[in-house]
């Protein structure tokens, strides 16, 4: 073999090695590893939320501003994860093309939920449904801005992240819907009635997201159902919707 052909062979071998390395980098990881990572991602976001609710908010006075640290870490994770997994904003549910369809999925469920909440408040607590007045009226004033924005934020984390990662673990269906609802309820402990309400709401929203992923419709639904909850249940039962350490203070 001539010197030139040896060099060529070496060059081919180097190219092949580079391609092998590149292809192994680009190859999809194993199903088990993918599931483990998705579970780890869900656990990591839960830990951040629990640190925020139970540790950062427990530091009264100046310490409460430290809340920004776990919240920023959680959002850094979600955004980085979307990027690494190649998920686009549209796929996550930031879109309008299916808004009407999402509303059609959500409306009957919301109506049923509203009636159930009103009955729950009436039968269990002897409370009257108050469309205006008290905290329901105050919430109505902030509904368009704060209510929807807060709903969008929560639904983004819950559906576009937790629900999607739960689907990596369990696939679409009742298991991932249940896991999403359980996570949502866990983050509302130790407020007992709010935990029950968020578990139920979590089931509905996770199901609706799997049917029709639209975060704007979910945010509107979230804000509306929060108002219905406040209007249906007495303030003493909800303790100002406080969760985590603040529930006791």
């Amino acid at each position, binding site marked *: 073999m001539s010197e030139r052909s040896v060099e060529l062979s070496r060059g081919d071998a180097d190219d092949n090695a580079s391609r092998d390395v590149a292809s*192994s*980098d*680009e*190859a*999809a*990881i*194993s*199903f088990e*590893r*993918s599931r483990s*990572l998705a579970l*780890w*991602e869900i656990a*990591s976001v839960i*830990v*951040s939320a629990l*640190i925020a609710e139970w*540790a*950062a908010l*427990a*530091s*009264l*006075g100046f*310490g409460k501003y*430290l809340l920004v*640290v*776990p919240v920023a*870490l959680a959002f*850094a*994770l979600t955004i*980085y*994860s979307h990027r*690494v*997994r*190649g*998920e*686009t904003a549209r*796929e996550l549910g930031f879109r309008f093309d*299916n808004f009407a*369809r999402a509303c059609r999925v959500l409306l009957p469920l919301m109506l049923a939920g509203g009636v159930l909440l009103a009955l729950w408040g009436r039968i269990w607590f002897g409370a009257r449904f108050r469309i205006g007045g008290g905290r329901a009226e105050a919430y109505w004033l902030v509904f368009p801005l704060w209510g929807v924005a807060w709903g969008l934020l929560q639904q983004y984390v819950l559906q576009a992240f937790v*629900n*999607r990662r739960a*689907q*990596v673990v369990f*696939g*679409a*269906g009742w298991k991932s819907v249940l896991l999403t609802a359980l996570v949502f309820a866990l983050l509302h402990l130790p407020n007992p009635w709010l935990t029950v309400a968020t578990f139920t709401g979590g089931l509905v929203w996770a199901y609706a*997201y*799997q*049917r*029709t*992923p639209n975060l704007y419709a979910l945010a509107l639904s979230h804000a509306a159902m929060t108002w219905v909850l406040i209007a249906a249940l007495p303030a003493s039962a909800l303790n100002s919707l406080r969760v985590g350490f603040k529930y006791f203070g």
Partner: protein
Amino acid sequence: MASDTPEARRRGGDLETHASPRLSVSASGEKDANQESRVGPAAHDEKSSLTARGGERLSKFLIGKSITETLFLVALVSAFSYAHFNPRLRGTLDVANEREVSGWVVDEAGPDKRVEVELYIDGHFVARRRAGEWRPDVLAAGRAVSANHGFAFETPPLPAREAEYEASVFAAHEWIDKQITGLRIVGKPLRFKVQAGAKNVGVREDWWEDLEH
């Protein structure tokens, strides 16, 4: 496309059992007109699946996040402890017997302040007062800027017994913008015995019930 991988096939198998809308992609790569969603395992096969490099980067990120959160928690607990348990309280319990319980306490964060102290015997509250007794030895030792940091409690009548009593003194300090008052022990608890004598004739075994607070 990831649909050829074992992972995708397995997920695809799961998918068929669910009734949720499915994404289908035409040969040209465009979505069908009636398709709705990209979520679900099929979507994850294509859009939420990870490459080996991506998985590694995500793992590293998660490890970094966990370490950061652990450090944050440690810092938070340390800062909370330092701010609210007042590590700058100094003092000792010098004497504890059937006549008196005495010592001194200084808050180095506020050397002029007269610290409030509480006496407990066998865990029962006995009395509360400001530490403002004359203790020139504390001043001489350089532990305070004035000599008025001593405290002295008169030991209440206690029934005579073979077993020892334990006296503890706690310094009160305010937490969290004066919203909560906490207690921090001064020095170490001291033990003492009580002999039968004139002072404790007729004192009940549950002596703390007779104390006036």
